[in-house]
């Protein structure tokens, strides 16, 4: 277990470093960071000054080395927009994102699992048809669009929730639901599919023959199996919510988290702040991956830590 975790951790550090190398290559080699950051009317002197300030006049490999070493020390440089360490800005904006992601993901997984289990118990029934349709809509509707439609309908039309911003629980409801909807769809479809597999498995038929009750078969035998299959998908979904959905939903609802911050930083050409957001999200993504792997290994007795590559 200890050795396994150590191995996974070192892999995770490697992933984060490669993300940062990609960011570096893209920003310094393909793009022209100074041109992006400076206003159009900037002079050559302004340019040289900023280059020196950012250390862009030094050899590229030295820059890369410093960049990675600094990143490992959680030093991403100063935000051009806010004029203070970019990491400070990101960590300040992180809690609202965590609240939103937690709420949206919990909503998505709970509802998705319930729908998936219920519909998987009777494939082809009307509950199942409704659930599959809902699931398909969840994965097919563009999230930013649902966000806007919900604002039109629930905020403007019915006046139930505020249109944007943060504050009390009423501010959280719409963004969390919109963030969770695609999760509901995919988790429901996957859980349903594994429930059907489980309930058709020989061991479930034989358990019925042995006299195990239907309730126990569904709640223990089938759901544990389906849960193992679902947990990997749930991990992907959480990563998707964090690295994609949150940016979109926070922008639609002006939710003051790191996704919204990243978009603001892009508008203000603050590449350094964007890099800091990418860095923090990358760390969270690899952490989620480790947690999912460990959870999977603990839930499924057939997988042993030493056998996981």
């Amino acid at each position: 277990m200890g050795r396994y975790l150590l191995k996974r951790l070192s892999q995770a550090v490697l992933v984060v470093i490669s993300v940062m190398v990609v960011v570096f290559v893209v920003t310094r080699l393909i793009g022209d960071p100074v041109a992006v950051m400076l206003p159009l009317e900037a002079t050559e002197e302004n340019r040289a000054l900023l280059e020196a300030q950012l250390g862009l006049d030094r050899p590229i490999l030295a820059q890369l080395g410093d960049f990675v070493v600094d990143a490992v020390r959680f030093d991403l440089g100063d935000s051009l927009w806010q004029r203070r360490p970019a990491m400070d800005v990101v960590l300040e904006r992180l809690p609202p994102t965590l609240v939103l992601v937690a709420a949206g993901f919990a909503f998505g997984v709970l509802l998705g699992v319930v729908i998936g289990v219920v519909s998987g118990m009777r494939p082809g029934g009307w509950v199942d048809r409704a659930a599959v349709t809902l699931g398909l809509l969840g994965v097919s509707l563009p999230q930013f669009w649902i966000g806007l439609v919900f604002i039109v309908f629930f905020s403007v039309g019915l006046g139930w929730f505020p249109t944007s911003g943060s504050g009390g629980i009423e501010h959280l409801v719409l963004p969390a639901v919109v963030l969770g909807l695609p999760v509901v769809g995919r988790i429901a479809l996957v859980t349903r599919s594994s429930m059907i597999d489980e309930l058709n498995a020989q061991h479930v038929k034989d358990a019925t023959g042995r006299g195990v009750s239907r309730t126990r078969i569904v709640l223990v035998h089938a759901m544990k199996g389906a849960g193992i299959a679902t947990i990997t998908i749930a991990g992907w979904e959480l990563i998707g919510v964090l690295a994609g959905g949150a940016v979109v939903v926070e922008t639609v609802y002006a939710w003051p988290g790191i996704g919204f911050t990243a978009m603001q930083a892009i508008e203000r050409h603050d590449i350094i702040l964007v890099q800091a957001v990418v860095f923090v999200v990358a760390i969270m993504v690899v952490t989620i991956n480790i947690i999912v792997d460990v959870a999977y290994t603990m839930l499924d007795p057939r997988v042993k830590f030493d056998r996981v590559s």
Partner: protein
Amino acid sequence: MNSVSSGSRSERRASAGRLMRIVRDPTALFGVLVLALLVSAALFAPLIAPLDPNKQDLAARLLPPFYAEGGSSQHLLGTDQLGRDVLSRIVHGARISLTIPLVSVTLAGVFGTAVGLLAGYRGGKADAFIMRIVDTLFSFPGLLLALTILAVVGPSFWTLAIVLSLRIWMVFARMTRGLVLSAREAEYVEAAALVGASPVRIMLRHIAPNLTAPLLTLAVLESAHVILSEAALSFLGLGIQPPQTSWGLDVAIGRQYVFSAPWLIIFPGLAIAVAVLGINLLAGWLRVAADPQESAKRFAAAADAPSAWSG
């Protein structure tokens, strides 16, 4: 030899039968019809669209759709803040919103399949190395990284298409590798190797045919993801740029008028939703058609394929 040729003949007959079955399957038929409609809209946009999508008519600004009070039959779905016809913009928007997935998925499919073939066929260290890279890329924060790249490099049709294909090629690589590995195990492939068939010949004649159906299904499925990604990126202002039109971009423009002119976001968004739904229905059906065991589960197929999709 005999059995092989008769096998492929009966296979051909089976696929003809499958084509017949799509007609009898209402949801799959719906998906196909919707896609056909959207593709023909994209192909014949200038003929179909009632008006020039960029023609401004300030006298007819923010007109509501025909069914609402003040709507006119001249602008069936209303007009935007510059008096441009919403329906015409949607018809023209289909061109980019459908070309982007075509280009991205083709790029990603070709590259990913090539890498997967290499990894699966070479095996050993090359395989381990390639798959390590693929696994690493799966752990990248997808949409956020795409945003960063587009912000630095500058959004355009081609950067968008390439960035989106960079996000999904690993899916093709992983699936191709898996298929190659299991096909290599098959007895007829081993037999072909034993009688001295060249690796290229084995690859083309014996392994490639096993890849087509699953990879095509995957390509269909991934194009749904690309449409949604393109729309999201264009919505965030880092995708398609004016004066080009795309559905996501139109929603972004309409966002400022969400309270006064909701039709500006409703209809382009519906176009995205319908296109993605149609593709998902088709993908689900393709998977069921390729694998009879899936038929009990029906549409669920669309969702549980592995994907780098996020957001």
